[in-house]
């Protein structure tokens, strides 16, 4: 019995030597893994960045004080002298000065009480200490019509010379556009030599990257009637071009 007890003690003692060895293996591996120190550094950088942004915002607001500014948009709410306008940047609350000139659509001066919800107004005034716009001139006008134009870009995949129609593909968005050219379309092309010159439809080549502004209409693909086009020579032309190559005007 005593012998068995001694044997067991020796086995446990030998095992005990290996446990620190096992921990040593773990400890060495843990040293390789990223430590949470980086996380805290990132958080610190984020905090500093936010603090700087807040400070810059404060300084900008301070500097704007007393500056002439204007907002435009339909009136959402009218509360005493405060108007809430729905601008393209969201809702803006402005305060109408007691001596403000309020001009109606007819061009004649009207009263604050004549203003109604949804009327489109152009509110002009000065930024106050509270970073609020105090209105000194408010003009009611028709809501400006949106230009309706949009920008598309992509690489020319097909050219229809007879109809003067281009097919372009935007790989990034996975979209195909049809671009119609008319006599008013202004075309420029940046050749492989890096120079941008006025161009004709016939100067455009497949694989040119196109930037188009125009009026869109929809069918199977989006059709754009181009007002203005900038074509940038495709990579193949850039490779084959020599220093003496020229671009047509």
């Amino acid at each position, binding site marked *: 019995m005593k012998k068995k007890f001694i044997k067991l003690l020796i*086995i446990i003692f*030998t095992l005990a030597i290996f446990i620190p060895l096992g921990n040593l*293996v773990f400890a060495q591996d843990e040293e390789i893994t*990223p430590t949470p120190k980086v996380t805290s550094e990132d958080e610190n950088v984020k905090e500093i960045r936010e603090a700087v942004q807040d400070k810059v915002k404060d300084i900008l607001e301070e500097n704007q004080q007393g500056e002439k*500014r204007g907002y435009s948009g339909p009136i959402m709410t009218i509360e005493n002298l405060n108007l809430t306008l729905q601008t393209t940047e969201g809702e803006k609350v402005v305060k109408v000065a007691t001596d403000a000139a309020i001009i109606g659509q007819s061009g004649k001066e009207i009263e604050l009480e004549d203003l109604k919800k949804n009327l489109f107004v152009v509110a002009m005034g000065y930024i106050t200490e509270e970073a609020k716009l105090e209105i000194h001139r408010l003009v009611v*006008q028709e809501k400006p*019509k949106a230009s309706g134009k949009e920008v598309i870009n*992509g690489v020319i995949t097909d050219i229809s010379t007879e109809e003067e129609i281009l097919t372009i593909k935007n790989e990034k968005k996975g979209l195909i556009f049809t671009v119609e050219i008319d006599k008013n379309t202004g075309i420029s092309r940046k050749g492989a030599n890096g120079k941008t010159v006025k161009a004709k439809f016939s100067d455009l080549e497949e694989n040119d990257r196109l930037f188009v502004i125009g009026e869109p209409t929809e069918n199977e693909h989006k059709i754009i009637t181009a007002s203005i086009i900038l074509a*940038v020579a495709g990579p193949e032309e850039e490779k084959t071009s020599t220093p003496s190559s020229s671009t047509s005007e």
Partner: protein
Amino acid sequence: MKKEILIAILIGFILGLIITFGIWTANKSLKNTQEEQPSTEGGISVSEPEKKETLALEIIEPKNNSISDEEEITIKGNADPSTVITIIYQEGEEIIEADEEGNFEAEITLVGGANEIQISAFDEEGNEASKILNIIYSTAEI
């Protein structure tokens, strides 16, 4: 007695080796699993560097929501070098290119009252950035 002690040490040694090998193997497989998943923990990403997805675009002049008493104004800004800049406004549109330092400028014509000007930047990869500039054109005294 000596023989028994030696046998006990040998058994302890073998058992210890087995346990240590087990710990090492478990630790190694755990480490491999962590490496396979792109980890953002600790701010270190093991995935390949991503292509640039966003473009810089800053309008320097005029300030947003400013009031102009002149019909023609110059828009000045800064974007990534050599990007294509498009400007759409009520009276027309422009396509220009930023210079090697990213600077650009274009002259546009305003309409009376509110003007919404859409300015966009595009690079060769098809990335884009857009900003809306609201300018009021009024010659009236404020």
